[in-house]
């Protein structure tokens, strides 16, 4: 029933050591949800090669990153709830 193995929720800016750790651990079949400062990865980093990438809409807008390019889906809080249930497990970085 699960759409994803692990949902990784990343709320740290790309320069935070935990961001690098999260991206390094991402596996095929995982999903990455960028929240808070995590959305800055959309402007300052390469999106991971594996896994599906989501970004939380209010944080994307607050940081002036509306209409991001690349393979990312902008989602609302309701989708965050669904994603957390679709994944087999959730890790908040």
């Amino acid at each position: 029933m699960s759409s994803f193995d692990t949902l990784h929720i990343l709320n740290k800016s790309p320069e935070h050591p935990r961001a690098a750790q999260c991206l390094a651990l991402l596996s095929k079949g995982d999903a990455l949800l960028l929240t808070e400062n995590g959305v800055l990865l959309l402007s300052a980093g390469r999106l991971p090669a594996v896994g599906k990438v989501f970004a939380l809409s209010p944080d994307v807008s607050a940081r002036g990153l509306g209409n991001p390019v690349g393979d990312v889906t902008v989602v609302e809080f309701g989708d965050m709830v669904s994603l957390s249930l679709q994944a087999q497990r959730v890790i908040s970085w």
Partner: protein
Amino acid sequence: MSDTSETFTLVITGAPYSSQAPQTALGFAKAAIDAGHSIDRIFLYGDGVHLASALCTPPSDETRWPQEWADFLEQHSIPGIACIASALRRGLVNDTEQKRYQLPAANLLHPFEIAGLGEWVEGRMTSTRTLYFHAGG
């Protein structure tokens, strides 16, 4: 929204006015309720216990996050628990702890309560999902 109703335990470890964690957690909690799910409990840990302060007084044009959370908890009858060890170290106490340690005041905001990590363990066991809201950076 969803076909089945699930339960969540939310753990908040980031303080208001220092991190965005309490805001993001509230956004998630409201969306979960809107989708027909329920919140089993909120557990405040580490610096997150500051969310239960009755004395936070931001400028009038800024959101009062402890009050926003307290209103939400009351409205939906959700227990909000601050970890006792984290709370005592950081100066967050209720009447009971005030008396026990002979402190000059109590500052816990209603309806938040103070209890041990067992509440977190229990929440993890009974909820479909446990989510953590840490300080960003």
